[in-house]
């Protein structure tokens, strides 16, 4: 599944500490869960003003999942 890599790519491009980006993907039958963890100081960068960055990442994840006929939930863990 490439969604894990997708979230990694995007998150690493946004944060100050790319090495601290951790992404986990959990597969269900029709649904997937992607968990994104970043350095404490970078949480704001992946969420963004009014959650706009997180929302944009979810939009890409949703479009990619749709093509695969799945649904994916993206969680940002602090």
């Amino acid at each position, binding site marked *: 599944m*490439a*969604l894990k*890599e*997708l979230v990694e*790519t*995007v998150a690493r*491009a*946004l944060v100050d500490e790319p090495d601290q980006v951790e992404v986990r993907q959990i597969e269900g039958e029709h649904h997937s869960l992607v968990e994104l963890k970043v350095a404490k100081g970078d949480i704001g960068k992946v969420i*963004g003003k*009014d959650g*706009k*960055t997180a*929302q*944009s*990442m979810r*939009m*890409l994840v949703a*479009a*990619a999942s*749709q*093509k*695969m006929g799945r649904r994916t939930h993206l969680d940002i863990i602090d």
Partner: protein
Amino acid sequence: MTNGNATPTFADAPEELPDAQAQNLEENQRSEGPSRRGHSRRQRQQQPQDEQPFYEGDERAQEALQFVSTVLQQMGMECRARLCRPREEEEQGQLPEIVVEVYGRDSGRIIGKRGQVLAALQFLTHRAVNRPTIDRRHVVVDAEGYRLRRESTLATMAQRLGQQAVDEGKIITFEPMNPRDRRVVHLALAKFEGVITKSEGEGDERRVQIIPVRR
């Protein structure tokens, strides 16, 4: 800046194909749909293999292209990205905008409902390219000319409303729009005699106003 035909990428490849194949390819691209209508015949003849010339851009533009290409691939989308020549004349002292164009069969998915996916991709690309410490660059991510078509419709409407503002001597206020669309309106009316434009309101409620002025 680099000339389109100096770029040694796969834009050049079709020239090496046997004639029959090359012609086939040309036809395929013609039948691609109404999205490319805006291009002149001259351009079409010069660049039969690709109606929009390739553009190399600078290092940060390459960085943006790299980001978009990687994202597309990891999304499992059957499409590719390339850089295009900036669409607008930049004001003096400003860095040229970065224009990334997505093309291929999954472009529709990349545009998404009312351009939402495209907007998200542009927003994230902007974020990736514009780090806090360096000069800000405008970033445009388009797919099959979607944004270009929308923007030209919006610019035409702005000019029509600009004329209306002059004729009626009244202030015309737009619906709330995103920064990019507001910018299109401002630019469309920048050289329009008899009006000035201003943005009023905060956040999602920010609207462009067209204000008539006496000369």
